[in-house]
Each structure stands twice: as structure tokens, then as C-alpha cells.
């Protein structure tokens, strides 16, 4: 398996507009609040098999609520 740096996920939920794109990209990691549709995490840690999905979730997030650090662990 290719060795990669783990993505450091940052969530600014005050920016979230509840589009649900992160849930579509990484349904094992992200969920939406029942009240206002904004982002919530299903789990606080995950193994690297989910890293690509998390990167994709950050890419398709329209609001800027999700960003990635350069390197590090989640």
C-alpha cells in the first residue's frame, strides 16, 4: 500500500450550509444534524482506508466548512 500523510481534518461548522456533500463522499465518517442539516462526525478517529474518502469530502464541500491541514493525523 502506498504510504501517504494522514489528512488533518478541520471542521468550521459555523460555515456549514448543510448541503450533505461530505456525507455522500464519506458516509462512514460524516453525518448531518437532524435539526439543521449541518455536519457532524460519526466517529472521532478512523483508519487510513477512509483517508481518500475524507479528502474527497473536503474537495466537494461547497461552503469551506471542511479543510485539510498539510500533514498530521486526524
Amino acid at each position, binding site marked *: 500500500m502506498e504510504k501517504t500523510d494522514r489528512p488533518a481534518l478541520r471542521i468550521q461548522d*459555523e*460555515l*456549514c*450550509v*448543510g*448541503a*450533505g*456533500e461530505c*456525507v*455522500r463522499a464519506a*458516509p462512514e465518517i460524516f*453525518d*448531518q*444534524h*437532524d*435539526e*439543521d*442539516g*449541518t455536519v457532524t462526525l460519526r466517529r472521532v478517529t478512523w483508519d487510513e482506508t477512509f483517508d481518500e474518502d475524507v479528502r474527497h469530502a473536503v*474537495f*466537494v464541500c*461547497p*461552503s*469551506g466548512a471542511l479543510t485539510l491541514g498539510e500533514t498530521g493525523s486526524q
Partner: protein
Amino acid sequence: MSAATLTAERFPPPRPAERPLGIPEDYRRMFAGARVPHVLLPSGRTAHLLGRYEDVRAVLTGPVSADGAHPGFPMVRAGTASTSNALSFFRMDGADHRRYRRLVAADFSVAQVARMRPRLERIVDELIDGMLAGDQPADLATMIALPLPTQVICHILGVPYTDRASFQQLSDTLTRGPEHGRESFLAAVMRLQAYVEKLAVAKRDEPGDDLLSALIENFDHDDSLDRRQLAAMVLLLLVAGHETTASMITLGALALIEHPHVAEAVRADPGVTPNVAEELLRYISIAQWVPRVATEEIVLGDTTIRAGEGLIALPLMANRDPDVFANPDALEPYRWNADRHLGFGFGPHQCLGVQLARMELQVVFEALACRLPGLRLAVPVGELALRQQSAMFGVESLPVTW
């Protein structure tokens, strides 16, 4: 930006003859000459056109305002009324936008939409049964494309489907307002608002398990919410909830007819349908223009856009950017990055109903491919009446046989 680069352009430019889903030649020319063409719109206002994928993403997530009442807002045609007061958070910025949008966002969440799938499948089956039982040729737009999203948004909101004539016609005038003149546009807005307010009175007496009843509850118990927004939000959801998806279904059916290998791929492996829906969203890009005004200086390459200047993002051009999508003018069922398209826009204003629209499109495209394998146009493609001048591209009718 020097005056020499400011040219008056036909906007939106016409689609190529006989190829309604093709890129206008005028866009190819404009973007061959400049990364960010600066044009004089028919309204007399100016706009920087954004056609590169990375530029559209950067600008729609950047320092821009969606407020149509802003003096620099790039209205396309003269005499167009601002939709700012009519369409609620569609034309708000920042925290206000998020606050009102979040009142309804959970009703369109991935989980909520997934629960609706059996209902969507049943509606689509009934609509196709109805078309098959009728005469040929039939108009796919009125038999399938419009009834599906209209029934769905009526169900979500708790608006009687039997009232659809009253808001379909009004919302048609609203989305194509400029063609009908400012007066009829404003009259349509007021009539739709009156309709929504009348509905709200009935819901307050007899609440249902629906979004309109929940919204009324919110507005009645939170004095900090602007009460005028109730009707404006329902109006926005009704308009955005059926016209857009209906256009995407009709034009998607046209694309499936014109590219038989795509429908063939769905029949061979229905599992590819979600990717086909994304590819059709990319290829068709029904939002013809997404206007914004810069609130701070924005630099794109050697172009500087000053605060207060108008910008128009062009999803069609971004979605055909060869730096992102290989062989962009081809419709490819298995395109690996089809879902990176900007067909729903991008930034905080990205389509609220994105997950619902996706599921409606997946269900209807799979059913069209599998149940109507002989679907074809009943008229030459050049005779289709295109909605070229509408912010949402579409076609008036799609006569088909099968």
C-alpha cells in the same frame, strides 16, 4: 481592466444550431482571447465571465455577494427586477443566508432523501405507465419531467398537488420573468406570495407532518425571524424545487436519446446510473449563469477584479474545462471524476436540493433507459423550442416516441 477589452456581447450567446447541448461558439471565441473576458451585458452592466473550473470554484467560495440589490450586481437584461426580496436566502449573504437556509436544510439531507426513494420510484413508475398507456408521440416534459419534481416538492412542503396549476404558471413567469417584462414578473411574485400566505393560514389551523407546518412553527416562536421570509422561502423552494429538476430530466432524456451508448451502459449495469446522472449534470449544466458581485479585490492570473464589480460564473464552461475533465465534450458513463462537476453551483449557495435532485435524476434516468429502450425524438432536434434566455436552460417540450 482597460476599456479596450470591454466588448458588448450577446448574452447568453446562442447554442450551436442543431446541437442544443453544445457550447456556444461565442464562448469559445471569448475564452480563447482571455482567461476572464470582461463584457458589456444587454442590461448595460458589465461582468467578468468565469469559465475555468478553478476560477469558478475560487470565486464562488470567495469574497462575493449574491445580493441582487447591490448596485454592481450583473443583471443580464435591462429592466430586470431584483429577485432579492422574492427569493429569500437565494439572494442573502453570510450569516443571514446560513440562518434561513438551515431552517430547511435538514429536510433535504442525505438521510431524509434516502427515506424518500421508494416514493420516488413509485411516482416514476406511475408516470411512465401513464405515458405508455397514451398516444404517441407524447411530450416527455409534461408527462414525466415536470410532474415528478412537482409531486415531490409538494409532498415535502405539504402543498396540495391539486394546487399546482396556480404556482406552476406563476413560477414559470418568475423564472422567465425578464421575457415577460418587469410588471408581470412583480405581479407573479405578489400572487405567489399571496398563495403561500393563504396556505400558511390553513396550516396554522391544521398543522401537518410537513415542512411548511414546521416552518410556520419556527416563525411563530422566534421573533428574531423576519416574517416576510416565510412566504419568500416557500416560494423559493417551490420554484427551485420543480423547474430546475424538470429541465434536467427533459434535457437528460434528450442527451440519452442523442447518445444511445449511455442508455445502453445503464441497461447493461444499472449500478452505473449514479455516475451517469453526475455526467449528465456535468454535460448539460442547466444553470446558464451564476451572477455575483465582488466584495473585495479578486486576482485571477493577470486579471484584477475590483470590489463592486460584477462577476458571472459559467458552470457549462467550467464543466467542460479540459484541464479537469478529459475529452470534456464527450458524454462518458464511466467518467472517473464526473461528480466533481459544478452543475449545482458551488460555494455556500450550492443547490439546497442537491441530494434530492440527484436521487430524482437517478431514479428517472434508470427507468427511462430500462423501460423505454426505444425512446427517440418525434421531431428533428433543430425544431425543439429552447429556453435560451432563461437563467435555467431548458426546452419547452420534448415530443418522443418509443
